[in-house]
């Protein structure tokens, strides 16, 4: 099992990173649909356009931006799901698109909208499968499951089929699965979606503990500004596929010119609008 490192080289290094999608435009109306049988119009969308980003070990960064800004595409490239169209990308010292065992066993991904747990069996069974995948020694496995179970308050539901869990319970179990192998880098996409207030606080506390105790680097994408405020040290705003702001929350507040007591939602909305105009 890999242990988080505190090496001087950055955990994520992206240079001039770009990614475009090609698809056929869907014409409107019946006549358009009939015309498309013989002639289709190819379209190219530049989702990420020359992104430069460096993330050091142990950082917690919030990757934020309006819908369609390209932040999900960036995360997908960083975890090896998508190949960049151009530019260079190194994550944990590996090229993500190669999807090597060494790379994939060092990262973890939480998709708030997609389950990593197996739906028809218990969480414990999913954890066992991951135990085999990540080659976790049995003693470590038992200790980590007990520790995560207690921390996340899921000890009593570990043997319940996942399909019988509430959304909030499932998200806690998803977290346990994601953290089982102690990843160096954690991508969390809307990790607190569907959680009640108490569970959100638990998740935030857990992320902080994981970051501080193990030095795990966390890349957070979330529309929950309370998550962002509670967790991130650094904010990267993505607009039009580029990083249009990279700095602390304080710097972002100062940049928007809003008073310190302004809600973070307002700060973000103004920042997105401002950066969108510039992009």
């Amino acid at each position, binding site marked *: 099992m890999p242990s988080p490192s505190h090496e001087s080289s950055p955990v994520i290094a992206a240079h001039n990173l770009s990614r475009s999608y090609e698809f056929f435009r869907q014409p409107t109306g019946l006549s358009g649909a009939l015309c498309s049988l013989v002639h289709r119009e190819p379209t190219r969308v530049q989702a990420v356009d020359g992104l430069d980003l460096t993330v050091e070990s142990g950082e917690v960064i919030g990757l934020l931006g309006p819908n369609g800004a390209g932040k*999900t595409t960036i995360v*997908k490239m960083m975890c090896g*799901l998508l190949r960049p169209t151009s530019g260079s990308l190194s994550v944990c010292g590996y090229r993500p698109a190669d*999807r090597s065992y060494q790379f994939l066993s060092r990262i973890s991904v939480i998709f708030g909208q*997609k389950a990593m747990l*197996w739906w*028809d069996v218990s969480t414990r069974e999913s954890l066992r499968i991951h135990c085999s*995948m990540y080659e976790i020694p049995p003693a470590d496995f038992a200790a980590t499951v007990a520790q995560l179970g207690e921390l996340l308050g899921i000890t009593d539901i570990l043997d319940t089929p996942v399909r019988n869990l509430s959304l909030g319970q499932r998200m806690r179990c998803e977290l346990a699965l994601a953290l089982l192998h102690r990843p160096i880098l954690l991508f969390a996409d809307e990790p607190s979606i569907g959680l009640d207030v108490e569970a959100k606080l638990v998740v935030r506390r857990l992320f902080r503990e994981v970051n501080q105790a193990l030095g795990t680097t966390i890349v957070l994408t979330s529309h929950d500004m309370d998550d962002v405020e509670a967790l991130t040290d650094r904010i990267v705003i993505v607009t039009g596929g580029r990083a249009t702001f990279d700095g602390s929350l304080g710097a972002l507040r100062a940049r928007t010119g809003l008073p310190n007591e302004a809600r973070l939602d307002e700060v973000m909305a103004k920042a997105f609008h401002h950066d969108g105009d510039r992009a």
Partner: protein
Amino acid sequence: MSWRVVRRTTSVFLALLRQEVQMIAQYRWWLLAMQASVVLVPLISLLVWRGAIAHGARPPVTTEYLTTYLVLVSVVTMLTSSWTARFLADSIRLGQLNAWLVRPCSTHLASAANNVSEKLAKIATLLPLVVALAIAFHSDLELPTNPIRWLLFCWTLALGAIMVFSFDFVVGTLAFWWDDVTAVDRFRQLITLFLSGALIPLSVLPAAWGPFLAVQPFGYAVNFPIQTLLSQDAASIRDGLAVQAAWALAALVAARLTWTRGLRRYSGAGA
């Protein structure tokens, strides 16, 4: 591939297999109903043929051959079948593949575990039904006693299963290029049903089709494994073994090629 990778892959496969069996155990009635339907098609075929023979029809094979073939066909069809294409295509189209691609494990291991576990469960429920059929028609049943024949049968079953699984996989990976592969999958299923010998033995098809039937791949999934038990023509079995191995290899290469090429086009829809 190092010993450590083999050990890890085996361990994950067994864990997935255990998980699949647990899941199947929760759907007991579905399994029984499915197996009853698997036996029904060859049973109807068997009754129709025997009725036709009783009324004077003269098929190019003996009643014993026909009866043994149709009793075996449900087991062979089940053991070499695959149902991955639809699920794989959906997971590509809807982005569900994301959950697998971020794990340090072959994405195909889950499909293989699903295939093997379902077959283990199905054979357990199918065998009693086949034994009942065999008892009902025992006077016309002719099975070889030579163990070499049964070994050949097992070998051709395994290669047939690999070939069908790989072709099924190729159809599923077409979803990297096309939004909907349902039509291709249905066409393949229809062709397979007819040309594999699952519906009627290939031996009763017109003799002029012989050369074509000998080289097309589908017959090596159902008809050929049964021939290793029933045919007396050693030369055709020998040739068949070579052709089946070639098709299995071609299917594996095609599956590998469409997967690696397709992944480059993957957009991971949704989060």
